[in-house]
């Protein structure tokens, strides 16, 4: 039996504590049992009987020796014989799927208020992690821009005083220009919104999914035409 002599270790022999940090031989009787004790010493405190096993302490030492063996190598299973399989698949159509497989148009950053939601956070085993804030997606294939309005007006009033006192005529010329108007809301039919093209806008962390059991594709981009 071989034990590395380097390293600090302590041992108690008959109530006397001996400490060494070198490779010098300790002042105890060297025997296979002692060698084993030295090897197992770093794992915890040991009793006197563990260091110098005698007839009456043999059982204790044996038990410790087995425990020691378990902690070091021989009998303790250090290799996993059973395969542990961890899959990262998500239910088709769930929010997790939309996180793993971003589809349905280009994403863009949501306003700060919407980003405070902590509902969605997708982590992967290889340290990949999607952004923790929700993202808005549109399904019409065009970038959604902010709706802006510009208004101009010019007014005039006529109120004669020399004749027809009390007459008042006003006119206001106006011009309203609106950019980014949403006007293509799909083709409303009697059937529900079952395809991605009919879903105008949604938050990717929301429960946007087909009804359970109705998914036709794994990435849930389409749903069957049934209510």
């Amino acid at each position, binding site marked *: 039996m071989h034990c590395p002599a380097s390293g600090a270790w302590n041992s108690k022999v008959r109530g006397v504590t001996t400490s060494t940090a070198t490779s010098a031989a300790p002042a105890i009787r060297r025997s296979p049992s002692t060698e084993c004790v030295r090897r197992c010493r770093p794992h915890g405190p040991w009793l006197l009987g563990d260091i110098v096993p005698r007839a009456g302490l043999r059982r204790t030492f044996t038990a410790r020796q087995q425990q020691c063996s378990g902690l070091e190598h021989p009998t303790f299973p250090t290799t996993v014989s059973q395969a542990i399989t961890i899959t990262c698949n998500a239910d088709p159509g769930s929010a997790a799927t939309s996180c793993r497989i971003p589809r349905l148009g280009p994403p863009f950053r949501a306003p700060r208020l919407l980003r405070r939601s902590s509902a969605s956070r997708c982590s992967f085993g290889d340290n990949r992690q999607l952004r923790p804030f929700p993202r808005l997606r549109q399904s019409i294939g065009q970038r959604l821009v902010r709706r802006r309005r510009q208004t101009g007006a010019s007014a005039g009033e006529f109120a004669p005083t020399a004749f*027809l006192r*009390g*007459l*008042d*005529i*006003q*006119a*206001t*010329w*106006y*011009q*309203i*220009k*609106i*950019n980014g*108007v949403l*006007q293509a809301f799909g083709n409303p039919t009697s059937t529900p919104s079952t395809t991605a093209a009919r879903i105008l806008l949604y938050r990717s962390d929301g429960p946007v999914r087909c009804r359970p059991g109705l998914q036709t594709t794994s990435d849930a981009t389409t749903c069957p035409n049934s209510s």
Partner: protein
Amino acid sequence: MAQDVGIDWTASYDFDAGDFGAWNAGIVGTYYLHDYQLTVVGTPITDGFHSTVASVAE
């Protein structure tokens, strides 16, 4: 893009009826001039108030 152009107008007349009080009569209205629409970038701008639509069969 959508652009609406028009004129809001109003005309009123105030008169004093003596012991019968002060009266006001008026009318308001809006005259729409243009209704420009640009649905797809690159296509001509159409005016909904000045476009010839297809005839409707009776």
